[in-house]
Every structure is written in structure tokens, then in C-alpha cells.
């Protein structure tokens, strides 16, 4: 571009050229701020999540009284009294222990539900996006129908029908969540379908299914899986809402929603029975959301930067 341009006097390479862009400008640049923001969210999310997940995972190993161990003399003790970090509930059971053990159930249900809904959503969404035609119509109608369904009511009905066991609740939450995964996968596959490598594979004679499975899906799954973290957060919230309304595993199992619904009657005298389990839920869900957000920001940034 500058072959004919009469350059300035030759400048020695060893001296750095003066630039109007200072380090301060760089620090305030959008890209650095974005990167810093996403990194902050990632770390904060990770800390919050682990703050809840690690004690829950180690619930059986920690030196806490059992979650069903009653002490009718020590009912409704305030937090930090008598060695109970979260206090006790209306039957004298240690609240922290109940929250942690209940968290095992809630997390298990949430993880399983997310995996199941992820599989269903990816399969259906990819099929709808790739094959088009009536497959797409059917899946799209299903997606739309689910939006207008009175979801919570249907979930309560199914639980009443098949019993409030963990597989049923997992299945029910998975049904509630597959549309989001499917929608995202479908739009991603729609984009991928037009790309040259797919056409190349077709020309090479690969069967449609094989193309979908071996080429398109791997490219799509990574992005679709980012939404999975956010779905985990939703699944935990949905599970606690269901058990709050009474559709949870049999007593004396402690799930988070049930602990809060039991404690609701004592809200004016023993505030900790509702507040502390709720805060634990919030901490976990905030952590997972932050983590998901941070990962998505990073992916987006990287996607934008590649030409």
C-alpha cells in the first residue's frame, strides 16, 4: 500500500514509537473490561457454587448430627446456640445437617434432570433443525404448546399420578426444561447446516444421519452445553418449588422446598428456619448462573474475535 509513498526519515527500530494510546486507555478499553468482567463472574460464580456444593457433597463425612435425629428438648434453637450452626427446627433436628443432606437430593435431581433434558433437547432440536419438514413442524408445535401449558399444574398432576419418587421428579423437571435446549440446538443446527463442510460431506456420499452425528453435533454441543449450567439453576429452583407445594420425596426426607414450607409456620418466631435454607438456595443458584454467564461471555468474546 505504501510502496510509492515517500516515507518519513528512517527511524531507528530500537526506539519505541510514540503512540497516543496509553496503558490507561487500554485498561479502560471495552475488550479488557469485558474480559475482566467475565473473569470476575467466573471466579465469583465458582466460589459461590463450591461454597454450597462442597459441604453438600461431604454432608455424610462432616461432624454434624444426623438430619433425622430429633431432640424434642432442643426445639427451635436459634443459630449458633448449643453447637448448631443454623439452629434447629421444630423437632430439634439440626438445620444445617438437614439443609446439606437435603441438598444432596436437590442437587442430584437437578443434575439428572439437566442431563436428561439436555439429551432430549439436543436430539430433538438437532433433528428439527437438520431434517426440517414435518419433523421440524412437530417439534416446533411441541415447543410452542409447552409454553401455553400450565406447567406447574401439569407437573403436580404427573407427580400425583406416578408417585413422588426421585425418578419421577427428575423426569418431570426434564420435561419442563427440554424446550430451551431444543430451541437453542435447533437454531444452531440451522446455521451449521448451511456451512460448506456439510455440503462437502453430502457430496462425499455420507448418510444424513451420519453427517448429523459425526460432524454437525460435535460443533453444536459445545455451545448448547453452555446453557446447561443455567438450566441446572432453573432445575434446582423448580425442584424446590415442587417440594414446597408438597410434591417431594416421602418424609422424613429433607428437601430444600419442604424445609422452607415446614418452617413457614414459624416465620415470626424462628426466622432462621426459612431464611437460612433460602439463602443457601440463592447462593447456589447465583453461583451457577454467574458461572454460566461468565462462560458464555468468554465464548462469545472468543467467537467474535475469530474472523
Amino acid at each position, binding site marked *: 500500500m505504501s510502496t510509492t509513498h515517500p516515507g518519513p526519515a528512517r527511524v531507528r527500530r530500537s526506539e519505541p514509537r510514540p503512540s497516543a494510546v496509553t496503558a490507561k486507555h487500554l485498561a479502560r478499553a471495552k475488550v479488557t473490561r469485558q474480559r475482566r468482567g467475565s473473569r*470476575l463472574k467466573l471466579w465469583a460464580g465458582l466460589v459461590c457454587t463450591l461454597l454450597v456444593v462442597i459441604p453438600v457433597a461431604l454432608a455424610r463425612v462432616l461432624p454434624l448430627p444426623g438430619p433425622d435425629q430429633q431432640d424434642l428438648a432442643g426445639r427451635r434453637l436459634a443459630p449458633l446456640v448449643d453447637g448448631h450452626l443454623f439452629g434447629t427446627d421444630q423437632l430439634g433436628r439440626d438445620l444445617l445437617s438437614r439443609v446439606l443432606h437435603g441438598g444432596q437430593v436437590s442437587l442430584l435431581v437437578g443434575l439428572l434432570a439437566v442431563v436428561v433434558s439436555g439429551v432430549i433437547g439436543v436430539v430433538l432440536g438437532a433433528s428439527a433443525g437438520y431434517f426440517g419438514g414435518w419433523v421440524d413442524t412437530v417439534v416446533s408445535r411441541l415447543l410452542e404448546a409447552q409454553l401455553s*401449558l400450565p406447567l406447574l399444574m401439569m407437573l403436580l398432576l404427573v407427580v400425583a399420578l406416578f408417585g413422588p419418587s426421585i425418578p419421577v421428579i427428575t423426569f418431570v423437571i426434564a420435561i419442563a426444561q427440554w424446550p430451551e435446549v431444543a430451541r437453542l440446538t435447533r437454531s444452531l443446527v440451522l446455521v451449521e447446516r448451511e456451512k460448506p463442510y456439510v455440503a462437502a460431506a453430502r457430496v462425499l456420499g455420507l448418510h444424513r444421519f451420519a453427517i448429523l452425528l459425526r460432524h454437525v453435533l460435535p460443533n453444536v454441543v459445545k455451545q448448547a452445553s453452555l446453557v446447561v449450567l443455567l438450566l441446572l*439453576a432453573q432445575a434446582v429452583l423448580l425442584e424446590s*418449588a415442587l417440594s414446597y407445594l408438597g410434591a417431594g420425596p416421602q418424609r422424613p426426607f429433607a428437601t430444600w422446598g419442604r424445609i422452607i*414450607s415446614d418452617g413457614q409456620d414459624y416465620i415470626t418466631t424462628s426466622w432462621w428456619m426459612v*431464611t437460612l435454607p433460602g439463602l443457601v*438456595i*440463592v447462593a447456589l443458584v447465583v453461583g451457577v448462573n454467574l458461572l454460566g454467564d461468565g462462560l458464555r461471555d468468554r465464548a462469545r468474546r472468543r467467537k467474535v474475535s475469530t474472523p
Partner: protein
Amino acid sequence: MGSYLLKRLGQSVLTVFLTISTVFVLIRLAPGDPAAAYAGPLATTEDLAKIRASFGLDRSVVEQYLLFLKGILTGDLGTSYSFRSPALDVVLERLPFTITLALAAILITTVVSVPLGVWMARRADTTRELGANVVTIAGQSMPDFWSGIMLLTVFAVLVPVLPASGFATWGGLVLPAVTVAILQIALISRLVRSEMAKNLTAPYLTVARSRGVSERALVWRYAMTNSSIPVVTALGTRFASMLNGVVVVEVVFAWPGVGSLVVRALETRDYPLIQATVLVTAALAVTVQLLVDLAYPLLDPRVRLGKKVSA
């Protein structure tokens, strides 16, 4: 345009029809006997059989289904077992309360989340915006029954300024609407933020800025109007889902709406009432969704009806 409208209408009707049929079958498969809930503890087996016959439950499911469909065409959705009056009337008596709650929540959401989203977009990626980001994430992370109970405790018990339940005065609307709105504000403000951020860095805006248009006009006239389309459609969609989704809040605040009606109807296995509720709320939600979808191309001339918009 006309054929698209017809097609969408047909699809919506089909959706409602499928929903109501699924519910019809499901509730009859679920264990639990409406006659038992109706009769009380001293009923004999003979009594229960008589009651079941009077409800028409001794006929086959197919027969009941056909009768039900015939009933819909004539506007008769059966008599509620637990209320002993026409099921449709019971639902329509309570529906206005749910609509009021949903509208109030949407109003609060719009008023709070739009300025918030704009503020966040203008300060995108600064530390302050990061803080606001975390706050909105916290907003969508709180279980609605928990935030409802917390708000109830603070504003109705500790500092008793607002009523705790029911809808005796306008003040009773505040706490439930705010509880519902918390989640919506979080979601909508993030949407507003991302749309506005996209528009504020768009080339046409840079051109306008370079021509000397004031910052205020830039934000509110140019960027806002372009962002408004996805935001309005999102608001419409949230309103549609709210009509079904405020069950938990209605239970916490004893709000006499359709959500708490559903919970009660399930407890008493009140088949006509469950069916009527599902029909009305599904029809309403589908209608709102349809209107939103039809309004989309009106608002955005770039979109042509009938063509698939990339989701």
C-alpha cells in the same frame, strides 16, 4: 397474510385442544377418587358409587371425553364438585384477580427494568454495571416462594405497613406483584441491556452521533425504538406465561386467583374445575402469544409474516 393468520389460528386451537385432552386423560389416570373428597369420612361404598354415577364417572373415559367436547361447544364445562356450581363460572370469578396480578407485575417490570437496562447498557462492562449484573442474577436466582415469604415477613410482620394476604385494599396488591416482578425484572432488564448495547454500538448510531444528535435523543429515540421490539415481545411472552405461572405466589399470599384455585382443585380431584381452569388459562395464554406473534411484523417492518424468524 390472511392464510398465515388462519394457519396460526388453527395451530393455536390445536395446541389448546391437545393440552386439554392431555389433562383430561391424565387426571382420570391419577389415583384419587373425587367421590371420596366430596362425601366425607362416613360415606359407605354404596354412597360413593352413587356419587360417582351422579358425576358421570361410571361411564367409559371415551364417553366422558365426547360429552366433554360437546359441552365445550355449548359453553358448559360441567359442575365443579367442590364448589357445587358451574366450573366455568368459578374460574371466571377468579380469573380477574390473576389478570390484575399479572398486569401489575408487568407494569412494575416495565417501569423498573427498562430504565435499569438502559442504565446498564450505557455503562456496559464498568464495575458498576458488573455489580448491577450480579444483582439481576441474584433476582432471577431467588425461589419465588422464598422471596414472597421474606417480603411478607418484612413488610407485613416486622414493619406492618402492607396487608399480608388477600385483596381487601390496593395495598394488598403490592407484595404479590413485587414478588412476581422480581424474576421478570431480572430477565427483562438483562434483555434490554443486551439489545441496547447492541444498538448503541451499531454503525447507524455512530453516524447519528457524529451528526450531532443529542445523547438523550440517541438513547431514547433511536436505540430504544429499535430495541423495543424484542423487549415488547418478551414482555408479552412473559405475561402469557405469568397467567399460568403465578401459582406459588398466589398460594403464599392467599391471592384469590386461578393459580391457587388449581392447587385446591387438584387436592379435591375436582375434574370439571381442573379442566375448566386449564382450558381458560391455556386459551388466554395462547391468545396473548398469538397477538404478540402477529404484532411482531407490525412493529418491525424488516420481518415478513410467514417466513421463519431465526430463533
